[in-house]
């Protein structure tokens, strides 16, 4: 969807290095979310934001941090990447709570 962009699309990194994934939206939506998708688990919420500088933890937040300094950008940081963080990461945006999300195309992260 043109209103939400994730970067990079693919990344390979080494264990112990920091990694930042970026989610950029042009829809001016209030809510932004980071999920990870793993086989057998569906999508699990990592962190979410309900406004600029307003963020909170999700179901699987250990090892991750986020920042949202402006409406359009939501950054996900792995402070020290581990092999268990190898996954596909999806960002999503929503205008209202309890409203269908729009997902980005995903970032495939491999930690070696």
């Amino acid at each position, binding site marked *: *969807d043109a209103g939400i962009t994730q970067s990079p699309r693919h990344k390979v990194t080494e264990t112990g290095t920091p990694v930042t994934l970026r989610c950029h939206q042009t829809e001016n939506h209030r*809510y932004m*979310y980071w*999920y990870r998708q793993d086989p*057998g*688990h*569906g*999508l*699990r*919420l990592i962190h*979410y934001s*309900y406004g600029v500088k307003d963020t*909170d933890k*999700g*179901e699987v937040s250990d090892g991750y941090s986020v920042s949202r300094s402006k409406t359009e950008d939501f950054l996900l940081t792995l402070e020290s990447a581990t092999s268990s963080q190898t996954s596909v990461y*999806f960002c*999503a945006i*929503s205008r*209202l*709570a*309890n*409203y*269908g*999300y*729009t*997902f*980005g*195309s*995903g970032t495939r992260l491999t930690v070696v």
Partner: protein
Amino acid sequence: DQQVKQNSPSLSVQEGRISILNCDYTNSMFDYFLWYKKYPAEGPTFLISISSIKDKNEDGRFTVFLNKSAKHLSLHIVPSQPGDSAVYFCAASGVDAGGTSYGKLTFGQGTILTVHP
């Protein structure tokens, strides 16, 4: 603890027939349910939703049924088409202990639907 479960990892149907995908949940605080469709190398796309005040919602070939007493919902696709072949996720949301909803979704594991021509 999986609060939303899709117990069928895969489903195979013939073109033109009905596809029925099932989903069970355990959290009584969930009050809004959604279905998403996902193609390989793409993000999930919203398909259809239902509020807990309803038991059925239709949109073209897609119908979602909600049975609150059984904590069960299902997605019916009639007639099924080869282009419907994808992974289908059910998801649920509700208010937190403070009565606020942030739109956080809890997803099931997904069901791979294959529609054969």
